[in-house]
């Protein structure tokens, strides 16, 4: 008897033989840019499993790293926090140095633009301990030629006057102090009147008649009448005008940044000097100083 294979067996054999030959074909046939067909098939067939596997491994790794492998995270966080603080400090120092460089550049520019004016630059080393007075202490004193009642300015405008002089330091009374002030005048109308401090960040211009037209935004400069400040040093800008009898109440925003002084210029003479206006002076300073301009 000859054993006749069942239909199922022969179909299985047919499928196997065809599959083997298909694979044989796939090994030989090349697709233009994708290599041999067997590789294309293999990659296509494996792709869903690879993707699933990658997804699974990613999840497993995520669970592991986020929930189980955290024993070193606290130390690492602490180290990073320390490093972050150090970096912040470094950045702060660098920013300070950059700002200081800008300020020094502004001073240098001011000095170069006023070569004939005897001046000395100083650094603010202390401020008044209380709120009752607005004074600062600078690192220039008698040895540097500083004397009482000398004008103290910045490239932005008037700051105040020297009220006490020591060997190496001096005290400066700011314009915003209740005792501070300077002879002033409106730039456009040349109307004169003293500007005095109120103990607040802004100042008041006094004795301007009610009839005078004083628009908000008008610039105010020194008049030179106080024998301390030379003429035409910027004092500030009119920010508020109220009618009064017999004088207006004019509130002035200081031109110099009196609440954050770091470097100042002491004019070593009280003789009249030609002071360039604010716009001309501001062309000289570095970018940081220029950026701080309103």
């Amino acid at each position, binding site marked *: 008897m000859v054993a*006749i*294979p069942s239909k199922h067996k*022969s179909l299985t*054999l*047919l499928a196997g*033989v065809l599959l083997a*030959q*298909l694979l044989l*074909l796939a090994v*030989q046939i090349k697709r233009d840019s994708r290599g041999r067909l067997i590789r294309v098939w293999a990659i296509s067939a494996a792709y869903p499993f690879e993707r699933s596997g990658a997804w699974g491994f990613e999840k497993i790794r995520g669970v592991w790293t986020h929930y189980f492998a955290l024993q070193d995270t606290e130390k690492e966080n602490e180290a990073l926090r320390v490093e972050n603080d150090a970096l912040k400090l470094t950045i702060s120092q660098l920013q300070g140095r950059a700002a200081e460089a800008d300020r020094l550049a502004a001073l240098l520019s001011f000095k170069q633009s006023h070569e004939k004016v005897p001046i000395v630059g100083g650094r603010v080393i202390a401020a008044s301990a209380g709120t009752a007075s607005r004074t600062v202490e600078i690192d220039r004193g008698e040895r540097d030629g500083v004397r009482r009642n000398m004008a103290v300015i910045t490239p932005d405008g008037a700051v105040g006057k020297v009220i006490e002089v020591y060997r190496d330091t001096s005290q400066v009374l700011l314009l915003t102090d209740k005792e501070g002030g300077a002879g002033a005048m409106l730039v456009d109308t040349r109307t004169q009147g003293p500007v005095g401090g109120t103990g607040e960040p802004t100042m008041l211009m006094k004795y301007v008649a009610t009839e005078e037209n004083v628009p908000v935004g008008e610039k105010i400069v020194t008049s030179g009448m106080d024998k301390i400040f030379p003429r035409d040093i910027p004092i500030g800008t009119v920010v508020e005008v109220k009618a009064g009898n017999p004088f207006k109440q004019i509130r002035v925003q200081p031109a110099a940044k009196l609440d954050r002084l770091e470097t100042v210029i002491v004019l070593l003479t009280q003789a009249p000097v030609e002071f360039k206006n604010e716009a001309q002076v501001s062309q000289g300073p570095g970018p940081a100083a220029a950026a701080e301009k309103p």
Partner: protein
Amino acid sequence: MNETYELRSGETHIEVHKFYPGAVFLAAVVALVFQATGPVYFPKLSILDLPMLVTIYFGLSRRNPSTGLLLGMVIGLAQDALSGPTVPLGFYGIAKTVIGYLASSIGARLDTEHPAARFALIFSFFVVHQGIMALIRRLLQSEPEVWLNLHLVIAAAVNAFLGTLLFLALDRLRRSS
């Protein structure tokens, strides 16, 4: 065991033929050699597919799907090997495997001894054979291949006619019952 025996398929009694030793091998080799060398001297002979005819004949006669498909596979792969580097191994192999299987399966169910039946079967198998090759060309090799045209119909008819005659000659290789 070398005698002809009967395969019962329902109520139909179909003979399963045995051949002289080496007859299948010899027929296959001759067909392959003829297919490889004949068209070199007589180009019009390329219209014939003798390996396919041999596959069909022994498939129909042996009526065993497993041996039929294996014979088809061997003949097809040999034809691939002899067809040069442009034909990948498995191209004819797959086609003739299927033909061998179909021929054996049909041979186990129908009486295929009548010349008219043989003509029809060869014609049909030729078309199926061509269809499989076109499918492979299109799907695997991304090459345009016609499914069927007038030339192929004529080729199918020629193969069917000559195949019918060839089958009569091959019948002489059978052992008598």
